[in-house]
């Protein structure tokens, strides 16, 4: 599974960082999120799915690969 984040859509709510801190972080200059670990291990996938669900901008996707 691959985590994709559509940066222009991000509204810097930080919800993904709260849900899956191993996978997401925020830029210092404007809080826009980025993916730290694009291919996270199985045991954090549920946390990533939660991040997908709570992202207010629908900016995160979990893609099969």
């Amino acid at each position, binding site marked *: 599974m691959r985590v994709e984040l559509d940066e*222009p*859509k991000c*509204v*810097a*709510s*930080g*919800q993904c*960082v*709260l*849900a899956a*801190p191993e996978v997401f972080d*925020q*830029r*210092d*200059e*404007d*809080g*826009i999120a980025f993916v730290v670990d694009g291919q996270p291990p199985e045991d954090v996938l549920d946390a990533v799915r*939660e991040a997908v*669900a*709570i992202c*207010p*901008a*629908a900016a995160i996707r979990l893609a099969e690969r």
Partner: protein
Amino acid sequence: MADTLTGTGPGPAEQIPEFPMPRAAGCPFDPPPALTAAREEGPLTKVRLWDGKDYWLLTRYADQRAVLLDPRVSADLTRPGYPLQAPSNGKNNISFILMDDPEHARLRRMVTAPFAIKRVEALRPAVQTIVDDLIDGMLAGPKPVDLVEAFALPVPSLVICALLGVPYDDHDFFQENSKILIKRDAAMEERMAAHGKLIGYLDELMGEKTAHPGDDLLSGLVTRVESGELTRSDAAQMGVLLLLAGHETTANMIALGTLALLEHPEQLALLRDTDDSRLIASAVEELLRYLTIVHGGRRRAVLADIEVAGQVIRAGEGVIMPNDIANRDPEAFPDPDRLDLTRDARRHVAFGFGVHQCLGQPLARMELQVVYGTLYRRIPGLRLAAGVPELPFKHDGSVYGVYELPVTW
């Protein structure tokens, strides 16, 4: 039934309920019964506003999220069909919350940095000190005491003042004027005067920061004015928005949340007897869901035809989405009317949804975690010093809460 409705056709006028709707006596935490009835009637119903026109009401969680994400709806209240809150609405600009992308995103991104999770976490010890000091003051002072005045309002006001670089000594001034701005039935002149005073205050403050910049958010905005990214007027609007949003909402969550917990002693006991940060975080999400204090309904104008629950909403029509009813949708939250601090409520829409979702939510969450995790442990005997029916609820505000909460211990 006709698809289009805003101000068109005869229709069954007498059956259309007015919005906002009253809460039931004796149920201060529950959404108005008429709102629950509307949700049970169907995903899309109509309501009538003060202007005599009818608008779509969306009550289901999934539909609200879908529409709030849709770029074909607009938060710009000058668009045709926008459901205005009051006649005075739209007479004063409150920055990017009433704009659409890309301008909305451009302005919002100028102030997002201080609300990043790590930046907010770094403030936690300072917030803990503020909370402890205020509790020390309460314990040393007379009782009963009004929790709103002594605690609920000072906590977020002190925090947002520090973050923005606003002198806390001016809190009487900005709290007084904020109160008028969010009052549903404030007269237009009154609202405009309050807004004008706040704008003037922020503008003057930013003038001082031009000469003596600090390490605060307003000084950051001043830098952007100097570089030409932001007009001075836009900067003042943003300052007012952040100051207002930064203290009114959290203050209401603190006081109303405390009341809800006092009325659910078994839930209060969970918080009083724990220092488990995960349980405290979960309690904050559940109280946000259960209370959903921003109860005026998120409002949008439809720019191009959209389909909701199998029905077309036309361009030029208006939509109202009360998040309080979506957060009680049984399809999203089992047994939704039960306050259960142990449930996973993270998917609530108490902060709204879509690109306009609350900018300050990480700060609000952290403040509430510190407050709920501290107040009841430090004052285990906390109890109401008045009957619930006597409490003055903010039925007239766009943010729900209590004006006063007399407590003792």
